[in-house]
């Protein structure tokens, strides 16, 4: 289905947020997720159903001061 991930339209086959994270091979990364403005904890990924047009943010830490 079509999702808005990190501000860009993406075509992803997924039922849960975990599927989305897996799609980008990010399970092992220290990634934080937000769905339609709600932060979803890692342990909720597999129980969080995703629907078309949902706004998903996948963020992580980068170098900074």
């Amino acid at each position, binding site marked *: 289905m079509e999702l808005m*991930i*990190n*501000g*860009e339209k*993406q075509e992803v086959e997924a039922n849960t947020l975990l599927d989305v994270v897996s799609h*980008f*091979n*990010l399970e092992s*990364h*220290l*990634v*934080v997720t*937000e769905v339609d403005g709600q*932060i979803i*904890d*890692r342990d909720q990924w597999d129980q969080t159903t995703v629907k078309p047009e949902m706004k998903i*943010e*996948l*963020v*992580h*830490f*980068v*170098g*900074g*001061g």
Partner: protein
Amino acid sequence: MKSSKLVIAGKELSSRFFLGTGRYPNPFIQNEAIRISEAEVLTFAIRRVNLDAPSEDAILQHLDQDSFTYLPNTSGASNAEEAIRIARLAKASGISNWIKVEISADEKTLLPDPIETLKATETLANEGFVVLPYTSDDPVLCRKLEEAGAAAVMPGGAPIGTGLGVLNPYNIGLIAEEANVPVIVDAGLGSAKDIVEVMELGVDGVLMNTPVAKAKDPVKMAHAMKLAIEAGRASYEAGRIPMKKYATASSGYTSLISR
């Protein structure tokens, strides 16, 4: 020579040097600089994963996570709302409830927004974050941030990345004199001299990134800055001599040979 320890939100820190993790030539130099600096508190930024190359910049994979206190910043936020959102995302990672509030609407100077910074500090402190706001060197604003629940205040020496040093030592000294929470000078410093200068003004620590990361030799500079922090603190505690307008001989003028 023991020095009293710095304590922030109940955490005792053995180093007064906070180090940023941006702009190093490569991760290996960065890690070596971090090791040499003996910094315990490291700052980071939060950004979207680059979906085309997810592993890029995943800074933490290079670090032994147990030995540090992580201080994510809210860089990129131009108001309190954005900063609060970034702070919550950072906390959700589970690695830290410390947050450096950094809010700027001006990309030329990156100077912090006093009003929005105060708002975000109050909200996040109430949510249980350990809040260290990056602020201007306005002593009144620093007092308000303290009252709003800041665990420490972080006035800038000069705009981020300029290396101009301490533009207003008077204000920094006044803030150190009046604050009831630790004062960490953040941003704008350029050299070891700048660090010693602010430490001698009585501040509790320094947060630096560019002067180490962009030095010709970042690892040696990390060492220099570590020594500077210790030198400045020891000098502050040892109590410097007063300045005098005229000279004083280091030997008496009695018993001169030729008189």
